[in-house]
């Protein structure tokens, strides 16, 4: 299978950068986007695309938009979808975890308050059997584990080993033999460490990466962890020993400023990550997982509509930049479609030709 490079559609509607992208759980029909305009949008990319833009000043119509979830008071930074697709959770600048009902577009619960995070929450994921837990990590250097089932407002666990902001978490679902990391909670922190909390063994293993960790992804078998760092390289680490399996780097690839999600694609054949060092059109760099060579550089067209001019601190108009900060592969890396979104607020869906 060749890498899907064809633009299937573009999803519009966000007024501002898209910070989070999530496919709905299998069969991954829908895409959820979390935007800095404080709302979460649910798209169906298989719907017909909007008509071609005639007036460049007019914002494109979001024909694929199904639902907008707005309750956040700040930007949305991460979204996680439950496996039964009935609920999802989102986090952002407001210091609580929003647990949503998909159909009614209302929050079922909000985890926060006195025992909650004391700063912005960067990341969220479902965990435990039947997605009964939510693991959130935030700027307050703590990971908090929330119980969805009980009515307790307090987190059931507080992991505060990290020395700096938590940028990403991973958690197992508690089903299986445990070899795929089903009983583990992983947290990546800006202090350059990936901490693996093994629930069964009661141990925490700290792997020093050496650079601020911005993204975590796990291979299907749970043996490898894809660690994105702020030194313009993505590492595939061995979960068991902590050894380095592969480093994904490229001369034209730069990531030392933003949190760039990276992911596996095509049954872990490829590693994808957005590139910072680009202009008005974004770029996604694709590596071959095994060889570590760059397979593709996909150009992601930025929004056609004239956006607001951005003025930098020096008072000059900044060049428009479309940094693709988040990528997501359909069906957790198994499907034949992937999407990416970035600072232009446009989500581009790629598929097979």
């Amino acid at each position, binding site marked *: 299978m060749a890498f899907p490079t064809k633009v299937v559609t573009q999803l519009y509607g966000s007024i501002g950068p898209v910070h989070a992208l999530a496919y709905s759980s299998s069969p991954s029909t829908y895409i959820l986007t979390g935007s800095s305009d404080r709302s979460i949008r649910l798209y169906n990319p298989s719907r017909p695309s909007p008509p071609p833009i005639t007036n460049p000043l007019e914002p494109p119509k979001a024909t694929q938009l199904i639902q907008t979830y707005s309750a956040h008071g700040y930007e949305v930074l991460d979204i996680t979808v439950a496996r039964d697709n009935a609920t999802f959770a989102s986090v952002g600048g407001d210091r609580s975890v929003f647990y949503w009902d998909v159909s009614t577009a209302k929050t079922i619960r909000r985890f926060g308050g006195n*025992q909650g995070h004391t700063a912005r929450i960067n990341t969220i994921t479902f*965990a*435990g*059997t039947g997605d*009964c*837990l939510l693991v959130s990590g935030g700027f307050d250097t703590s990971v908090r*584990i929330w*119980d969805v*089932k*009980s009515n307790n407002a*307090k*987190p*059931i*666990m*507080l*992991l505060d*080993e990290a020395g700096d902001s938590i940028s990403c978490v991973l958690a*197992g679902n*508690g*089903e299986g033999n445990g070899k795929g990391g*089903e*009983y583990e909670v992983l947290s990546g922190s800006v202090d*350059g460490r990936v901490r693996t*909390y*093994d*629930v*069964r*063994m*009661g*141990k*925490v*293993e*700290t*792997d*020093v*990466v*050496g650079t601020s960790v911005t993204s975590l992804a796990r291979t299907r078998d749970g043996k490898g962890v894809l660690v994105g760092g702020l030194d313009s390289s993505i*590492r595939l*680490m061995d979960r068991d*020993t*902590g*050894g*380095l399996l592969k*480093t994904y780097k490229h001369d034209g690839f730069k990531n030392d400023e933003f949190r760039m999600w990276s992911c596996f694609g095509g049954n872990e054949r490829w590693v994808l990550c957005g590139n910072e060092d680009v202009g008005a059109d974004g770029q996604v760099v694709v590596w071959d997982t095994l060889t570590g060579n760059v397979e593709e550089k996909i150009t992601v067209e930025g929004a056609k509509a004239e956006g607001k001019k951005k003025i930098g601190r020096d008072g000059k108009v900044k060049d428009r930049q479309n940094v693709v900060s988040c990528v997501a592969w359909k069906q957790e890396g198994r499907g034949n479609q992937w999407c990416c979104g970035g600072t232009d607020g446009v989500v581009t869906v790629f598929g097979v030709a």
Partner: protein
Amino acid sequence: MSGKRSRATYESDLQAQQSPFVTYGTPLPPFDPEVRDDGSYVPVWKQEVRDERGLKRLHGAFTGGFSAGYFNTVGSKEGWTPSTFVSSRTNRKKDAEKAPQQRPEDFMDDEDRADAEDAQRVQTAEGFSGLGSTEEDAARRGALIDLFRVEGETIGVKLLKKMGWKEGQGIGPKVRRSARLGGNEQVGDDPDATHLFAPENTNMISFTKKNDHKGLGYEGEARLSGNGNSIAAHKSEDEEEAGDRTALVATKKQTKKKAARGGIGIGILNDTGSDDEDPYEIGPRISYNKVIGGDKKKKKFVNGSANPSLKSKPVFISKKAALEKASKGFRKCRDGRLPLDGFILSSIDEFSELTLSDGKYAPLEIPEGWKSSKQAKPGSESTNFISTADAAKLSSLDPKARAAILGEAALPGKSVFDFLSPAAREKLASASGKSNLPLALGEIPKGYNMTEEERHKELLAQVPRVDRATAEAALSRGASGFMPYGEDEAKRSRYRNYLENQAGIRSSPLERSGGFSKNDWLKELQEFANCAQIFKPMSGMMATRFTSSTSAPKVASDASELSAGPALLSKPEPKPEDPAEQAAKLGMYGPMTRSSKDWYPTRLLCKRFNVQPPSHVQPGSTEHAEGDMPRNMAPDLVSKTAIDEMMMQGIRNQNFASANIQAPEPVIKKEEIVIDTEKNEALEGQRAGEAVFKAIFGDDSDDDD
């Protein structure tokens, strides 16, 4: 619609709507409680303030609670207008003027006012009204009471009247004088015209009978109340005791006034008999003139002074003026006392008149042609007088010559000129313009007549001393990092030289470098001495208790510089990097970058993950965050993780040896710098004994309790 309906419109509308059939009278209020009913009774607390358009005047927070005036009526049509604040600071009197002047009428009720009105009724004076009047009796009595102790017109008066005498006139032949019209002269009148007038009435002089044993002129306490009053008091006393003996006509008015209203001491029998005076009348004691032409003394209400208790406006009188005034009236006698009452000190001084008055005692006139025998002799005038100073000036002898003439021994001291060089003398001479200055000898004084060596020695003796220990301490402090004058390398080296000299390290004497004057040099050395005192390290007790942690010159680069001088700044030792970080930097991921620790998931978490809790999690441990605190961990001296770390480091070091990788470390540079990479001093070092801590930080008193 242009706006709100006016109130009248509203009311008419209301009536038309609610009670359309009422033609006469005021309709009853509408039965519907919703409809606003104007005119019906509303409890006070429900009443609202409305303006003339029927709109609520007060809204929101201002409708309740505090009420200004009668239910927030202040400032409205119904309420009073609050006066605006006027600061009395700058314009004090403005307010006072506005304050209404209180009049007696303000305190009178209607009855009083009617009485007052009655009292003011115009009437003819009794004297004119007809015979039988006794009103004027008092006056008549006053004039001739002493002569004729008879009531009514005596025969004498009758006789006098027949002779043309009229009451009020004096007795005697007529006097020719100009008319005294009291300033009312008419224009046509000749001011010089004289007419015949009856003589003025001479007042009867009364003598007060002295029937006490007090001294002449003694007034008793009456004197306290002032001079003028005392006379009045006298008179009133007289009048009261005698009742009929009044000597001075001037008091007539006073008596009359007294009689006008019932006063203390005047009974009903003293009543003059006029009908309109009720002796028992109780009322304000206000007297009005009841006679036309009676001279009315105007009451002065407005006296202009802010203080109503003051009768007159206070006027500033300067001390000088007051003294002058006082000296006019009350000049004191020679013995310092005031003159006797009634006497005035004479303004003419007899003695001064004796001596100074012109003409009276003029000096004797010198007879013509008289000559004094004490005239100067004509011969003495020829010699010119020359003062000693002038004479000295004229003399050309210098002190030495004079001394020689006098045969004195030469003075041991020397003149300034002895030490002046000839050039300097020339300069002086040209400046002063004198040519007779003594010769410049160009001598060199004894103290300055030294060899170079001697001079240097003396200079060195002036160098400030620092004791050896201090100098050494300051030097060592400098060596271990800090030395002053970091910004001036030359000065710093001089400072070091000085210290070394003082410490005895350097035997060679201090050298004064070229650019310095002697004073500057000494000044700088003094500064160095002070500096050494300040910058010497902790000494004594403190020094024995503490040791400095690390010394900078152990760093290789500094060690080589030591001969040249200690470093300007002690370089901070690089923070020992986490070996795991180093390993990660080198890409040596694996056991070196991984560390493991016990973690205590809560039971609920384990339950949610559908696993058995790990064995080391206590079955009774709490479900929440506090559970992750290790409770079964003994406080090991070297923790397990530390041992792990040590082992890891061991592995790493082997790797270094085998792979021959040069880590960018400052550690392996020189042999003399020994940093034990195997050992983390801070972590693994032996904890000092309790006694040591006590010795340093302990308080003796602590041991007692």
